[in-house]
């Protein structure tokens, strides 16, 4: 349950499609206590994140998987350690 699998999707280029992927992985214990707390609260209620600005478009979202649970949250709610864990690749 300590491993987090991250996938970044969306953006103007449509990451998450057949050719364009952005993925990362890290251990929950690699995060600072504050970031661990953020992740815990995201999994507890992923819908509770602050709303995006109305009209916003082309922002990234992050699919975070822990064990069998996957949540999808907007970039502005994701700790920077998680954001910087992904690598963009072509497939």
């Amino acid at each position: 349950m300590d491993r987090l699998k991250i996938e970044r999707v969306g953006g103007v280029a449509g990451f998450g499609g057949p050719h364009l992927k952005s993925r990362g992985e890290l251990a929950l214990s690699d995060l600072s206590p504050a970031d661990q707390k953020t992740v815990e609260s995201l999994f507890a209620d992923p819908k509770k994140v602050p709303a995006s600005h109305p009209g916003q478009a082309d922002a990234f979202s992050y699919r975070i998987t822990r064990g069998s649970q996957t949540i999808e949250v907007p970039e502005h709610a994701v700790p920077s350690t998680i954001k910087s864990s992904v690598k963009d690749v072509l497939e």
Partner: protein
Amino acid sequence: MPCSCFIIPNDVLTKLSQDKKLSASVRKRMVDTVQISHELRELRNQAARFTSVAATRADGLVTLAAAPSVTVYDCKHTQTLPGTPIPKPKTSSDGSVKRSFNQTSKVAKFYEQVFNRNSIDDHGMTMMSSVHFGQSYNNAMWNGSQMLYGDGDGSIFVDFTRGNDVIGHELTHGVTQHSLQLAYSGDAGGLNESISDCFGSMFRQWEANQNVKKADWLIGRDIMGPGSKKKGFTCLRDMADPAAKHCLAPQPTKYSQITPGMDPHYSSGPPNLAFCTACVTLGGNSWGPIGQVWYRSLTGFGPTPNMTMKAFAARTRQVAHTMYPSTAAVSAAVNAGWTKVGL
């Protein structure tokens, strides 16, 4: 003589000005006061006439307003917005700053000259951009109040300010926010993305003065990095052939191929193809009748956040008929576009 003279009626003032018992200077001031009060009344009448004309022609006044301000900020590779303001972006030695300023100014001109629109909100809103957002950031976006551009990683993508269609795409998200207010999921999400591609592509064609046959209809051609090109990807999306192999983000071509929860950058394929087909069927310039029909359909009816693609298709068919009642070819072209994608 104090100004309180203004509350004395003119006929009294005139009478007093002829009263020899008063000094010459006092009598002269009374004559002046009558004159001033007359001029003031004229001024008030003119102001009333102006207000009345302005009220009936307010839309025209909006278009007379000065061009919107265009501002650029430098995030210096952080994700903190807006970043440091650039005092003279037009002459900056930083290519990203200069490009975002120049192309944003041209998008303003495009909307003004082609669609008689004054900036993003049609009321002269400042067009604000932040460049060098994040580190090797592979994205550009509209955050609800401004544009932001990443530098790209130099392999998959280069600097996102290099795509004038990308800049037109992002600004159009602002236009949509201030008109149809489309949501960002389901049919409305796909339409939202498609409208940004349609106007981004139209802007690119307008800037190059290309007709629909000359245009390549590619989105993101100028931001593709060497790694993408090496694998044969020449664009993000191709409005004329959304499922093509050279697309980094190939899309469905039929409305029936859209699946629930699909990213709007993929579900925009069918409406993109419908627009392109309509333009090519009619010929001429994309920003001509077909572009005008799309613009009126986007801005002329107030917000419909959850609009379906079927409803938007019906609206463009209706608008084509209303705007060009004696040119059946426009309606036929719009119909051909939607029919091709199954709508």
